[in-house]
């Protein structure tokens, strides 16, 4: 019995997080199928078919899936799931909405945000803003889970999966997509960026002006604390933390970030952490590899300039 992965894509390519979910699925050593929902998905299906370790791409294509709603996605998953031992997805907003709904339709419990798979039915997952790691055993007949993408290596390319088209179920009609507003940025996607520059509330109105050039210099994404978002200095979709995006880049630079547990929950698995803070006792220094006690309004531009040389 194989593994089914709910894929996420932008209409052209799979999201990096889905490749990482495929990486996580290797834990079962079983064939992996990718479930791809959308409209006009020929291009992305071709991309999905090349992911190493994927046996089949199951394509469910219909105009009403152009913006897939959890109500519809969960129905598709619940219909297919009985043929699988495991159904998983990366822990994204999309999967967090659809998978629990599918689990309830199947009357099985699910495991959210697994950071490790220690046995075919045993997982480690963070609780309490990452202050506690719980090991949980799931004895349900179908294992449903979301995985923390950054905790798993992304599957590479070179696969040659077959692409099968499945009929799309009729729309649930419980919900209707109205519109969306996605932030456009030429910066890399936060969740998978190699470098993340994060700022706190203290940046004030100068958030972008101070951090933008450093992000530009390093080809990084911007992140923010909840306090910075609440104050309106940074957009909500770049909040890093327990209740925002979880990142684990090679380099995380936290400028004027106090280091509350809820923020650390979203970044402490970064490879190298730099903290710049005026307060020598700030909690962020406890997780920083390199700490600089300084005024960020001086240190960040200096750092940007020094890296140019």
């Amino acid at each position: 019995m194989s593994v089914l992965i709910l894929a996420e894509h932008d209409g052209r390519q799979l999201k990096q997080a889905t490749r990482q979910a495929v990486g996580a699925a290797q834990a079962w050593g079983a064939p992996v199928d990718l479930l791809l929902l959308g409209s006009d998905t020929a291009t992305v299906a071709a991309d999905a078919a090349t992911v190493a370790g994927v046996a089949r791409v199951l394509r469910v294509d219909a105009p009403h899936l152009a913006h897939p709603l959890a109500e519809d996605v969960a129905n598709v998953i619940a219909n297919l799931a009985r043929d699988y031992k495991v159904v998983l997805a990366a822990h994204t907003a999309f999967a967090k909405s659809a998978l629990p709904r599918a689990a309830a339709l199947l009357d099985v419990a699910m495991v959210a945000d697994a950071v490790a798979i220690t046995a075919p039915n045993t997982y480690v997952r963070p609780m309490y803003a990452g202050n506690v790691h719980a090991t949980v055993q799931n004895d349900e007949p179908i294992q449903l889970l979301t995985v923390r993408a950054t905790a798993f290596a992304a599957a590479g390319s070179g696969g040659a999966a077959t692409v099968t088209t499945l009929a799309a179920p009729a729309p649930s009609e419980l919900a209707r997509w109205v519109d969306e507003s996605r932030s456009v940025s030429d910066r890399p996607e936060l969740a998978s960026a190699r470098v993340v520059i994060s700022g706190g509330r203290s940046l004030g109105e100068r958030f972008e002006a101070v951090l933008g050039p450093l992000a530009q210099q390093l080809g990084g994404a911007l992140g923010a604390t909840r306090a910075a978002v609440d104050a309106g200095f940074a957009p909500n979709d770049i909040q890093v933390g327990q209740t925002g995006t979880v990142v684990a880049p090679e380099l995380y630079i936290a400028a004027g970030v106090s280091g509350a547990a809820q923020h650390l929950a979203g970044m402490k698995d970064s490879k190298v952490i730099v903290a710049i803070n005026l307060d020598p006792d700030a909690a962020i220094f406890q997780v920083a590899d390199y700490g600089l006690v300084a005024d960020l309004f001086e240190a960040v531009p200096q750092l940007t300039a020094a890296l140019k040389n």
Partner: protein
Amino acid sequence: MKALVAVKRVVDHNVHVHIKPDGSAVETAGVKMSVNPFDEIAIEAALRLKESGAVSEIVAVTLGEAASQDVLRHALAMGVDRAVLVEAHGELQPLGVAKLLQAVVAREAPQLVLLGKQAIDDDAGQVGQMLAARLGVGQGTFASVLTVEGGEVRVVREVDGGTETVALKLPAVITADLRLAEPRFVKLPNLMMAKKKPIDTIAADSLGVDYAPRLKQLKLAEPPQRAPGVKVGSVAELVQKLREAKVV
């Protein structure tokens, strides 16, 4: 239109949690407990819908031991009309909670069910979606704006990289994200008044629902600690370290 708000009693977000020495659970004895912050946002959102005339009655419900009454008192002090405690002992997991809430929905017949997008203790984020599935209704997860109009509820949802707006038929389940509403400050007189209000208590076992836990928690542990870092004296030294580490 009636709204039901589900609230959970959790370890306060300011408390640094400790795991019991045997790794079986988090220490909660003598620890400050509070309303899950996201549920408090859901209460506030319901109160605003009532103030705008879209909602006529708000019922708060919680599941758990008798001690959970304190989060219902908090909800009453904020301004909800009634409170229901579903008295249940032992561990509750998302699917069981969804089933118990479904039974409460069957009694109360609300048009809107609001709850937080996740509880800050288990960080599972599943109950709203599971409840919506079991009720066979639409779900508006991670809501940051809510408007009720023409038999529909419009929800602006926080999704990765931006927002999305969906329209849901009523009844529907909504899970609150941070920006949905800023919870009001509870004034002491309101808290005193709320102490005197009745709370309906229902025994979970009388609801005919199987809410036994399905997942086995084998152990709790602290996450691996990072190796201690160093403080650098200047930007130049920082750049040198970053170059040595080959990250810039």
